């Protein structure tokens, strides 16, 4: 059931409602929307924070483990005073500090094939920010099975890439990369500003597909390198032999 915007919410979001094709109607759609974010680290944490700031109604966040020192250069929802304690507690606390109206469902687990379907069923949009390919493929496969749009965003060093997947219409992650690179490791070079840059774009993709404004990155991948500030918006196509989303896979 739709809950109309309160006066406090109208005051809070006044400036973004000035975006001409967004307005009160777009803000209401954000309030009515729910988003699953797989890991709220350097990318996902900023996605969550931006969506909380923008007035999203509900966030479901999956993130296991305890806060470590090496989280603190990029994972902006983790705080020094929470070192050694569950990340999901820090995530929920920080988001509620920013937006006490936000409904947060914190899950102290990372996404896997066994738990992903139950998470996906709770939401309207997914944002894939996990640091390991098995988690990303599990999210992708659940998105395709459930017909749920997913923003796919990732980075390494000073590079990042992002696309928005609409199952049945755009390439899925397995269309792009049928297999994970054997050389990928859990730990990777990262500045928080790089992960944050692609995270802000991912949050805007969620806003756009939720509110129906602008042109999301459908069948396009934005690939960029902040080392030389080169940006490529690349057309991408579905793989007719995709093991996940093609007719042959059915």
């Amino acid at each position: 059931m739709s809950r109309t915007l309160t006066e406090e919410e109208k005051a809070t979001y006044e400036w973004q409602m000035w975006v001409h094709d967004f307005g009160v109607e777009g803000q209401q759609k954000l309030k009515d929307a729910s988003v699953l974010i797989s890991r709220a680290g350097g990318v996902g944490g900023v996605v969550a924070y931006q969506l909380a700031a923008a007035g999203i109604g509900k966030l479901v966040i999956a993130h296991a483990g305890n806060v470590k020192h090496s989280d603190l250069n990029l994972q902006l929802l983790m705080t020094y005073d929470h070192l050694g304690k569950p990340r999901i507690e820090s995530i929920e606390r920080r988001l509620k500090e920013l937006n006490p109206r936000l409904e947060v469902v914190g899950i102290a687990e990372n996404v896997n094939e066994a738990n992903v379907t139950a998470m996906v069923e709770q939401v309207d949009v997914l944002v894939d920010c996990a640091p390991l390919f098995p988690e990303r493929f599990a999210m992708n496969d659940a998105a395709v099975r459930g017909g749920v749009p997913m923003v796919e965003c990732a980075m390494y060093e000073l590079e990042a890439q992002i696309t928005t997947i609409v199952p049945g219409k755009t390439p899925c992650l397995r269309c792009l990369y049928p297999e994970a690179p054997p050389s990928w490791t859990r730990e990777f070079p990262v500045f928080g500003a790089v992960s944050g840059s692609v995270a802000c774009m991912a949050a805007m993709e969620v806003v756009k597909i939720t509110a129906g404004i602008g042109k999301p990155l459908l069948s396009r991948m934005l690939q960029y390198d902040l080392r030389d500030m080169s940006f490529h918006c690349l057309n991408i196509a579905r793989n007719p032999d995709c093991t996940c989303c093609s007719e042959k896979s059915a």
Partner: protein
Amino acid sequence: MQVRIKLPANMRALADDIAEHKVQATTVGEALNLLCEQHSDLQSRLLSEEGKLQPFVNVFLDGTNVRELEAELTELKKESEILIVAALAGG
């Protein structure tokens, strides 16, 4: 003809830490093979033992994914740019 190949960040350490390389070639496959001859550690990151593109990279020739063209056999044009986009999962 001479073409430019831009490597992703996670492959540059395998190629003298250089992002952009220039080779003389007539097809995408030839260009990648030449680059791999100069930097042998790149071989398994880019090409299978059969010389096919690895399933965890995409290669864009002047903005078009070569899998939508003739893949490794895609012919190059003068001053073409080959952009290699690797699967990333950094989050």
